């Protein structure tokens, strides 16, 4: 990951700003961290500016202001991926697991 992109992610402001507790990022569950990492990796892979994801994130938060932040993040990630034609909703439905795999 480029440091530039990492800075773009960490310095988002407004509704898109990453949730923090006492100044540090707060993940409540591992999937939240995975969702952040996948979004960064996809944006990097496509050579997009971070704003391409940030705009989706702001829109997802605005669409459901009461929804937990990282659920909106996951929604924004899905919207970006579908918009760019990287996969389809049916393909995602088919790949959605119902149980957490044992490591």
């Amino acid at each position, binding site marked *: *990951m480029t440091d530039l992109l*990492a800075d773009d992610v*960490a310095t988002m402001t407004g509704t898109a700003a990453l949730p923090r*507790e*006492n100044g*540090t*990022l*707060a*993940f*409540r*569950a*591992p*999937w939240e*961290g*995975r*969702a*952040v*990492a*996948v979004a*960064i*990796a*996809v944006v*990097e*892979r496509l050579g997009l500016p971070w704003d391409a994801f940030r705009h989706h994130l702001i829109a997802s938060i605005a669409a459901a202001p009461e929804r937990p932040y*990282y*659920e909106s993040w*996951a929604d924004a*990630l*899905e919207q970006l*991926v579908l918009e760019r034609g*990287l*996969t389809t909703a049916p*393909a*995602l*439905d088919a*790949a*959605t*697991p*119902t*149980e*957490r795999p*044992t*490591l």
Partner: protein
Amino acid sequence: MSTDHGHAHHPEPMAPVEARVAALEAVLTERGLLDAAAVDDIVTHFEDDLSPRNGAQVVARAWVDADYKVRLLENGTAAIAELGFSGPEGDHMVVVENTPTIHNLVVCTLCSCYPWPVLGLPPAWYKAPAYRSRAVREPRALLAELGTVIPDTVEIRVWDSSAEVRYLVLPQRPAGTDQLSESELADRVTRDAMIGVERL
């Protein structure tokens, strides 16, 4: 889900959003658009640089407030919640205290149960089979390889985390820190010390 180990490590089904993120990652990886190693690297970046330091605040409070320390060792979950830290992966916290004669080490032998609300994301090695097996079989040798030599006079106690109980090590307060404030003390507390693979 597994119930044949005496204690279930993954008793709950995935939340819909967790499953959806897993699906996104799986599909993108399968199509060659995502490199699993690259994603792991990014996660590691957040683990190392940006993970919550809530646990460090808990430790520092216990060092400066004897009454708090008593409460923390008696009921970890409640004492940690006093500082505002709680969550589904930290609702049965047990805090184990290092002393001059006892060193505590935390592992999850079956998977990677870990107290998210106080320690953030688990480091990659915590999930590695080598750590999970050797922490129990030969903790002293494992710790020495990690740069933490525990004298033979110190007993090592290994705690196996599960879905029911998550452990946090209360390290010994380092010598020469009498002048430090609580927040300065918290800065001295490392994640690895709270897992027990490092002594401060």
